[in-house]
């Protein structure tokens, strides 16, 4: 159920995208985490306390975040990183499937002596490798900026590891969702639109659930809820999330493998 030839090639074909997205996320971390040093001077805590509770909850903020670099980075900066990273994850995973249909390389790849489910599983393995490298880079940059520059004395690399791990697991889940949906699509452009829509959708569902008590149930549909970055940064990672997110990845890959087995490659 696995072909190393396909996995190696997929990693090679997607390395440029990985570098581009890593640079984008590094820029976001530098900008947001680097600006923490100005937060106290600007009186952010007092300012945030003046906003309505529902509003700041919707933005995923708490006043304490602006006084504690670990909560600030884990709960706020990583939330925006996860927004971008989940979009990238879906584009990467889904693109591995739709690109062959879009480019016309299905006639090459799907006539090799490898079963269709094995092709998808091999691609999922490449995705796993690339997303792992992506989050290792994010974690190392976070340590470099937070632990060596912004707040060397208080930046907790262990709590941050937990927060980054939850972000990583949420991205795996996003990839799993894309692997499940991609066999239904024939164009990479459709996949890109879907990835952006779902990425923002997950973010907004969690925001709405935080803002309005009646919509609390929506949080169960959001990857951000299961990632619970703030909790992980505070040293209390969400155990349910640690189970659900990899399960979504595994289920997504299994559904994708079942769908691609039945797909007609007419294009």
């Amino acid at each position, binding site marked *: 159920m696995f*072909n190393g*030839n396909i996995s190696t*090639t997929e990693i090679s*074909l997607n390395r440029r995208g990985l570098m581009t997205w890593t640079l984008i996320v590094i820029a976001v971390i530098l900008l947001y985490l680097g600006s923490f040093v100005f937060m106290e001077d600007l009186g952010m805590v007092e300012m945030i306390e003046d906003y309505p509770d529902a509003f700041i909850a919707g933005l995923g903020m708490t006043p304490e975040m602006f006084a504690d670099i670990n909560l600030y980075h884990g709960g706020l900066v990583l939330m925006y990183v996860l927004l971008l990273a989940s979009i990238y994850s879906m584009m990467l995973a889904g693109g591995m499937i739709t690109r062959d249909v879009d*480019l*016309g*390389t*299905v*006639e*090459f790849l*799907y*006539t*090799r*002596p*490898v*079963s*269709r*489910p094995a092709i998808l599983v091999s691609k999922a393995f490449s995705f796993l490798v690339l997303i792992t490298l992506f989050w290792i880079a994010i974690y190392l940059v976070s340590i470099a900026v937070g632990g060596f520059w912004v707040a060397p004395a208080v930046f907790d690399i262990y709590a941050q590891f937990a927060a980054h791990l939850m972000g990583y697991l949420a991205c795996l889940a996003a990839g799993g969702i894309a692997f499940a949906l991609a066999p239904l699509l024939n164009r990479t452009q459709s996949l890109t639109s879907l990835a952006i829509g779902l990425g923002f959708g997950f973010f907004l569902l969690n925001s709405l659930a935080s803002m309005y008590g009646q919509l609390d149930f929506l949080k169960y549909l959001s990857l951000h809820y299961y990632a619970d970055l703030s909790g992980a940064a505070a040293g209390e990672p969400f155990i349910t999330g640690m189970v659900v997110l990899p399960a979504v990845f595994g289920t997504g890959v299994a559904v994708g493998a079942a769908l691609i*087995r*039945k*797909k*007609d*490659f*007419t294009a």
Partner: protein
Amino acid sequence: MLYAVETEKLTKYYGQNRGVVDLSMSVLDGEIFGFIGPNGAGKTTTIRLLLGLIKPSVGEAKIFGKDLPPAGGKLYRRVGYLPAEINYYPEMTGRDLLEYAAGFYNISNYQWVEELVDRLRFDPDQKIRTYSPGNLKKLGLIQALLHKPSLLILDEPGSGLDPLIKQELFKILEEVNQRGTTIFFSTHVLEEVERICSRVAMVKNGKLIHIGPVDELPGKEIRVVTFKTAGRRPSNVALEKLGKAQELPSRPGCYRVLSHLPVNELVSYLGRFDLDYLRITNPSLEEVFFELYDLPAGGGEKHHV
């Protein structure tokens, strides 16, 4: 008798649109089998059905006596495939693609691949995005042949190749066939089928209309005669005896005839004219279909198999 390819009432509809209908045929192990039909006849659909890229609406297709399921698998080790439209990863070089393809078959000795590269005069070290259609075709042929498959399925292999390379390709195909490879050769060029195939199936509008030895190909006796007389114009009666004649609008006095006369009789009959110019060629597949099956109208066929 061992068959490399078998189809039984193979039918594919895309919604309301016809792909192929009731296609039953078999290809003997070790033969070069021509699969011929005009564009849109259903040749590529048939090949995709054979390869399991699409599922039949009705009927079945077998390769070496086994179903080729959409899940693919080990049976593909025995199959080499050249698609009509060649698409590879543009950021790879030709060599990268060949190494990627070879990786599926655990090929460690590249001598055969290098021989193919040399004989087809292919430069493997360029980016795929820079290749001309002819070079892409060469790359496609090498990747189809590199693992020495038992069955080679070629969809329009000659298109885009210059005549010298095409000649070399036919030599290579004859060699691999002598070594035991069955070749399923799909084309719309009649001459290519006559040049290399032992048996041939003809399809039109998704239906099989003829299958048999290449010598019994319908329309094989048809010749395209283009001539100009030096003296007076031939009479209509004389022209009608030759066949369906048409004066070329761009060249007054020059006639083009699709003739069914046996070659000796044709040459002897043409000797009666005071010829200024004469050219006798084989008809294109479209001309054969037009002549025998009223192709453009799509109905009113004269012959049915």
